[in-house]
């Protein structure tokens, strides 16, 4: 019975980690974006909200909690209210398998941990459909369709490139993947790390893939009709998903809780993991601050014509090279170096392929409309 109690308390504690972290992460991202846009961000110019306005998010939360929950008259009440609940639940549910430390700082070390992460994050589109449909709003439906087609499309390169660290460490258990990373997998298979990162950015709905919430195009996408804490729930779930994706990327490709002096002080492992996740999160924030938005056809073309085939090729090449090097029984550093070389060659090959195809398309375009300047150094359309 006390096992059950300990597990429940552990689950509760683990569920609190993203919620508390998100309070400071929202503040930090607002500050960073503001500085990139040459302004100050949240300060104490008005009501006092902690030193440097650290608790600005708490103030925002109080404001959102006191707003009226407006439910449109034609909306489907049950589904409308259930959608934000589902989206927050799914966002927090991933944290059950995340290993915060070398031993025991994990709710449950599932045998299929990496697969669980994938399975839970595939539940996200269904909450978007619920939100988009129950609003009975054309903009919400359009936003839901676009978001769902983007997310289920980008699951494929995400899962395929997630299989690369699983392949290299031989297990789906997250603790085992971390323990197999004497050299972080991001340095051994950078192409897989890059494809996983890009697919995650698209899954999160972050710029440049921010179609679900394209605020200048379809009002607010699938949560147009939501107000008050229900909108707050979507916003919260969005940030929790960002932080979760950063932590999962750090676990899979950056070595998790590994770092100097972890053997002596196990708690330092948690610090290293959170530091790595924080750095990845900041990269996502910088994406948000600096990049423009892609169109839906560009997003889907990027996925199906480039990212998915590239991730399949990465998986095949990595598997082949790994098996060859293991069969030749070389030392571990030679294995890592061999995989790195294979990955880099594949990346270069992909870029060369892209440039050839791109040049062919541009030249074809030029041939269709002769006489127009194209800016290419070798344009001989005249």
């Amino acid at each position, binding site marked *: 019975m006390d096992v059950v109690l300990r597990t429940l308390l552990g689950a509760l504690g683990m569920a609190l980690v993203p919620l508390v972290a998100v309070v400071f992460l929202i503040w930090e991202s607002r500050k960073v974006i503001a500085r990139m846009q040459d302004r100050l961000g949240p300060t104490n110019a008005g009501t006092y909200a902690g030193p440097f306005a650290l608790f600005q998010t708490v103030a925002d939360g109080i404001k959102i909690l006191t707003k009226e929950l407006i439910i449109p008259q034609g909306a*489907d009440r*049950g*589904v409308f209210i259930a959608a934000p609940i589902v989206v927050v639940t799914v966002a927090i549910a991933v944290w059950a398998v995340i290993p915060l430390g070398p031993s025991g700082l994990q709710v449950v070390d*599932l*045998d*299929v941990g990496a*697969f*669980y992460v*994938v*399975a*839970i994050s*595939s*539940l996200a*589109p*269904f909450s978007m*459909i*619920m939100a*988009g*449909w129950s609003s009975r709003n054309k903009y919400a*439906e359009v936003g839901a*369709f676009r978001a*769902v087609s983007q997310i*289920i499309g980008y*699951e494929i390169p995400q899962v395929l490139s997630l299989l690369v660290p699983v392949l290299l460490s*031989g297990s*789906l258990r997250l603790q085992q993947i971390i323990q197999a990373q004497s050299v972080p997998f991001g340095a051994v298979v950078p192409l897989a790390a890059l494809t996983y990162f890009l697919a995650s950015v698209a899954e999160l709905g972050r710029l440049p893939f921010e179609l679900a919430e394209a605020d200048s195009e379809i009002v607010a996408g699938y949560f147009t009709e939501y107000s008050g804490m229900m909108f707050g729930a979507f916003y919260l779930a969005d940030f929790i998903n960002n932080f979760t994706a950063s932590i999962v990327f750090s676990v899979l490709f950056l070595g998790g809780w590994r770092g100097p002096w972890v053997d002596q002080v196990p708690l330092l492992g948690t610090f290293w993991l959170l530091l790595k996740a924080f750095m990845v999160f900041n990269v996502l924030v910088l994406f948000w601050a600096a990049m423009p938005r892609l169109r839906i056809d560009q997003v889907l073309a990027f996925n199906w014509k480039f990212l998915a085939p590239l991730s399949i090729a990465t998986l095949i090449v990595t598997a082949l090279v790994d098996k060859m090097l293991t069969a030749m029984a070389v030392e571990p550093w030679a294995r890592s170096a061999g995989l790195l070389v294979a990955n880099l060659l594949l990346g270069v090959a992909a870029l060369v392929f892209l440039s050839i195809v791109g040049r062919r398309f541009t030249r074809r375009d030029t041939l269709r409309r002769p006489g127009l300047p194209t800016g290419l150094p070798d344009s001989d359309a005249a």
Partner: protein
Amino acid sequence: MSVGQLTFLAFAAFTLGAAVRVVTHRLVFHAALWLIASFFGIAAVYLLLESPFMAGVQLFIYIGGVAVLTAIAVMVTKGMMRRDLPTMANVRSSALVAVSLFLVMSWTILQMPLPEAPASPVFEEGLAMLGMALVDPRGYLLPFEVVSLMLLIVLIGALYVARER
């Protein structure tokens, strides 16, 4: 009644209730949501069978794939606008068929000598074994390849059938 049996009964009741709500619906979209709920219940039953891999596959393929597709199909065909009630004659005769089928199956099940407890030792999932069996030529490589070929054919066929004309 032990904890395990009570847990199973709770999940089973939830799954059956959701399944019944799927077929006795008022709005098609709600039926799709109850279908998702019954899939969750079945995933929970897989966890009781000590098979987290199957539960994950259920979540990933059925809820994240088939159910989302069904909901999109419902939205595209505006299924929510009409209240499609089955016609009365069909209800009685199909209920008769379903109930009699269930009675026959449950009588057969209760006749058989089935184990009261799972076979011991409690065997862990053995995912590595499953993976190796799927690519072993003396194992299940042929069904695996045939299934992937079938998926390819279905992919092309579905794209062709549903394309814009």
